[in-house]
């Protein structure tokens, strides 16, 4: 029984997804990218195979995507994360409605993608030069507030009332602004919420560049932060689809593409 893999090597985390012939997600894993991401990706892949009781030989096709896609030499094919994300989101979002707009926040980038009914990318926008409003920013905030990254959502929810406005879009300047807010007696809850709103504002601006249609699918690691998700909903003024597999959507899309390319090639052969 053949399986198909998608490996999404991001700047912060490596995500791997396996699908079967029916393109059903059968296993997935995430691990930090670290400095040696090629080795880390190989090891994570091995671990995932062991846990699912599979052999490497059972994986018929591997598609690499993400920032490290070209450096992962064990892949059969490399594809940009925008295409992979579109395919994954269309499939994962299907139970919730028709996905037409995707917002993705990653470790170092944020993207907005508009797709058609077949998951083809119609238009997309991406941050080119600056990593403000990405996962890195959230990590920095958590470090400054001495709380875990996973706790950010909790802190946000505990807040009642309006958060302060964080004006700086640059992560470096925002850091000093946050320290200033804490010094002026703002609570951690208020600061965290303020940060979420500033990221949401920035991301929604990006999304407006591609046009926001119908259901909006929100993915990437930070999408699991429900504080940020709340801020995004308010800034977008509409509901969001945030699936459980938000972080591995792109890897899942890459795995589906593996299956499709393999099928096309087998037909041709």
């Amino acid at each position, binding site marked *: 029984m053949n399986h198909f893999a998608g490996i999404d090597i991001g700047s912060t985390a490596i995500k791997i997804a396996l699908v079967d012939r029916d393109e059903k997600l059968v296993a997935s894993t995430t691990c930090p990218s670290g400095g040696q991401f090629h080795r880390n990706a190989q090891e994570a892949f091995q671990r995932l195979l062991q846990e699912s009781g599979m052999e490497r030989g059972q994986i018929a096709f591997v598609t690499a995507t993400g920032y490290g896609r070209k450096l992962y030499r064990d892949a059969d094919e490399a594809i*940009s*994360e*925008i*295409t992979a994300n579109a395919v994954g989101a269309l499939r994962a979002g299907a139970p919730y409605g028709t996905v037409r707009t995707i917002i993705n926040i990653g470790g170092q*980038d944020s993207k907005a993608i508009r797709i058609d009914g077949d998951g*083809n990318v119609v*238009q*997309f926008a991406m941050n*080119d030069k600056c990593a403000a409003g990405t996962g890195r920013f959230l990590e920095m905030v958590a470090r400054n507030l001495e709380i875990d990254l996973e706790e950010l959502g909790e802190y946000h929810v505990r807040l009642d009332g309006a958060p302060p406005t964080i004006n700086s879009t640059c992560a470096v300047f925002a850091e000093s602004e946050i320290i200033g807010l804490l010094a002026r007696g703002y609570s951690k809850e208020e600061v965290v919420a303020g940060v979420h709103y500033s990221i949401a504002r920035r991301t929604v601006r990006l999304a407006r560049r591609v046009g926001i249609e119908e259901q909006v699918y929100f993915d990437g690691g930070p999408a699991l932060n429900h504080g940020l998700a709340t801020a995004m909903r308010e800034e977008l003024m509409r509901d969001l689809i945030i699936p459980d597999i938000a972080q591995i959507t792109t890897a899942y899309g890459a795995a589906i593409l593996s299956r499709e390319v393999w099928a096309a090639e087998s037909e041709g052969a």
Partner: protein
Amino acid sequence: MSAAPQGGRRAAVLAQQIRESAQALATLEREFPDNPAAMDYFYKLFHRVYCEGGRAQPEGTLVGTTCVQVPDEIVRAAGGVPVRLCSGSHAFDLAGADFMPAKSCSLVKATLGLLQDERPAWLDSLDRVVNLTTCDQKKKAGQMMEELGCQVHHLEFPPSKDSEHARAFWRASVRDFVRAAERMTGGRVTRASLRESILAVSRAQAAYRRLQRLRAESPALLLGKDAFLVTNAYFFDDLERWTGAVDALVAELEARREAGISAALRRAPRILFTGSPPVFPNLKIPVLVEQAGGVIVADETCSANRMLNDAVSVDEWNLYDMVDAVADRYLKPCTCPIFTSNGDRLRRLLDLARTHAVDGVVYQAFAGCQVYEMEHHSVSRALAEAGLPCLYVETDYSPDDVGQLSTRVEAFIESLRSRRRRRQ
């Protein structure tokens, strides 16, 4: 700031410029397999001029031009040697930042940088510049060139082109320019010399069109990165020799076509490139497009198609009519975004897309190049109506954004592939 003396800084700028040129050439030559043999002439030419400071031009007074709409024929007829100064060098761009606001266009800054800094040896004698009054940044750059000790002729270009007033105004400008060119070079524009230069330039244009015609074929016979290099060479190469080299390339491509050799895969998405001009060594975006598996088959830019496509048509081969004919060629068909309205540019894009069976458009705008940024709106709308996807890339000469841009460009090429699959 280091305490290095001026000379030290200048030498460093030049060294940086040589390094980036060598790197760009290495990319163009080595990262793409199976380049046509006739391209060697161009690779070597760029190496000689950009990395060794050698002169490609024949003897004669160098006259720098800062715009594709400066009538070359007049300069040549006066016995001058036109050199287009529009630079694509990041090193010069940084050097030119002393003159212009940080947010201004890389190309204008690089041109100023080239003029102020340790120039490539062959440009040492250049102190005469023709600057056209096109966009605001170029207009003001002309003034700064005077500060740099250049003798600048400000050639007045009208801000719109459709009315007869504009045509008459520009003709008067060009007539003045004939005298100015004579003063710059000490030569004379005569009936015979202008006729010769019109004919020589038109032979070059005819060769370019033959090449462009081949690019309309499928599968693609020539990569866009090479095509841009060929047209870029026109900036500074000896005219007759350039024409011969293009014809040699055309002959080789025709032979390769017979042998069934193509430059890209049969189904590689075909791209039309438009917007701010790619000028060597800044072929960042074209290279990204072709590394991602696309192939640039046509362009609407002033470093290539707009420079060479339009031809002079003379009715009476006397001086009075030839000068006007040259003037008309540089105004009426010009699709520069500085003009008030630009239906011509849209039509040109759609025509190129149709004749070259284009799958998508890549629109480059240099950060700070307001007119191209502003025209993106109307262009993308017209393209969308024609069902042509368009990738808009705002960038400059720095290599900082290549990583992010490569993802965007690849995604765009992938989306074109899937569109094509769907249509089949």
